[in-house]
């Protein structure tokens, strides 16, 4: 169905204001295609997280239209939101792990909500944890993990489901450079498989290394946008 529409994600003259008079986003127009890899940058408070929140319907736009996977995310009823979110993987800036569940259970959650059979859940969770170097930690609780390990669990949960859209908010803020690039490669690989990937980041190393589309926000407005035909991930 989403193949029928032109873009996987489309924002048309979108504004978002949390409190009267102050705009977190202002008149943003952007489209993201299937399999696209986009980096979103900008200073603290520019509106990056807000943009991602609008896409997975965690906030509602104050003005404008947002089309996501063929649905109008700015008008979606409460009952229709879950089915949209199940097709989107999100790495939250603050991880949002469940402190009383193990790493394995945290990651499995994304599969359980779509009704994946238990056996398959186990296999897929193990595979993704291994890819992220967390297989030894799978029975640990998030609070007994280091910051970087928690961040990787959050990434695993977003990827395990092979979502059609992947939104990652500062996914490498707690990782050292080497690990950052390794994990960005994993995220970029998802784009190769057809996922629309949008990553918000401050990390200049990542911005330099990865090509694709670069969007820069400042004070809620898109101030620059350019694409390099192939970044390092194409090398």
């Amino acid at each position: 169905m989403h193949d029928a529409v032109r873009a996987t994600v489309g924002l048309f003259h979108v504004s978002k204001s949390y409190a009267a008079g102050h705009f977190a986003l202002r008149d943003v127009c952007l489209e993201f295609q299937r399999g696209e890899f986009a980096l979103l940058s900008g200073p603290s408070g520019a509106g990056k997280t807000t943009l991602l929140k609008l896409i997975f319907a965690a906030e509602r736009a104050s003005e404008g239209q947002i089309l996501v996977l063929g649905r109008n995310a700015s008008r979606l009823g409460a009952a229709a939101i879950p089915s949209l979110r199940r097709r989107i993987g999100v790495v939250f800036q603050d991880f949002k792990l469940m402190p009383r569940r193990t790493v394995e259970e945290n990651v499995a959650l994304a599969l359980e909500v779509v009704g994946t059979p238990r056996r398959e859940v186990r296999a897929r969770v193990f595979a993704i944890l291994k890819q992220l170097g967390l297989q030894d930690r799978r029975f640990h609780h998030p609070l007994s993990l280091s910051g970087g390990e928690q961040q990787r669990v959050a990434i695993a949960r977003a990827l395990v489901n092979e979502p059609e859209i992947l939104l990652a908010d500062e996914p490498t803020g707690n990782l050292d450079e080497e690990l950052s690039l390794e994990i960005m490669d994993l995220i970029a690989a998802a784009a190769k498989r057809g996922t629309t990937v949008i990553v918000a980041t401050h990390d200049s190393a990542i911005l330099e290394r990865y090509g694709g589309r670069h969007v820069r926000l400042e004070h809620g407005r898109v101030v620059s946008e350019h694409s390099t035909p192939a970044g390092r991930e194409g090398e």
Partner: protein
Amino acid sequence: MRQLWARLISLTRSALRGLSSSPVASGVAVVTIAISLVLVGAFALLASNMRSLLDDFGDALVVAAYLGENVPASEYPALADLARSVEGVESVQVISPEQALERFRVGVGRGAALLEGLSENPLPASLEITLLPEHQSAAGLGVVVESLEGLPGIDDLGSGQQWVEGYLRALALVRGLGIGLGAILGFAALLIVSNTIRLAMLSRRDELELLALVGASRSFVGAPLLLEGALCGAAGSALALALLFLLFQLVVPGFEFGLELLLGGLSPHFFAPSECLALMAAGVAVGVVGSLFALASERFA
């Protein structure tokens, strides 16, 4: 069918996981449900035992017509026939002085010690007059008493009436307590349990919010929570039953005399198995309703 089974298992598993992931909150919920049910249960137990007593009262709602000492025993049947003809009277039974003494002994239990010092039987013969159901009230009683008063050979109608009057008060008391306290208790238990479950959910709010963020449907979030409520209710009511049974075993021997006075000659009984089941069902229902309240009052989205 196997599908449904698998669904049920996974539901149960996630409910159990939810409960065990917040042990303090779950424990508190179970204990609160147990306490509430002990309250309601202790009251129900008392009421149920008192009801047996009240059934006995039904027998006491008779008019005793004490016969004069100068009436010979041979005239008793004729007097009884006369009494039978009065409007509102259902049946009449002759009680000899000996029968009266025996009854009194049984009726007051240990209180019968009171009578042991007596050298001769002070009780007169009497007619035990049962009233038709529609006359079994203070007003109905008055009409019948008025008619009986005119009959010959009858010395006194007062005593039986006084007994009945005393019992009517006790009856009203128990009924009043039953309706008032029972209703308050039940309602309070429901409120308390639903509040407790709501707080238990609040302590896991982050988790429930996350579920919504990863696209869990309302039923995916809600179903295990309702099941958790039901499980808490079941555990709580089982605990309550155990506590009540213990309380019953401990309290009954200690208060034997008091209870004898309270319950007349009846020995106190615990809940029947079917009543135990009903209490369990009430616990489960209260847990589910509490979860529903909590779900309705908190919106996770």
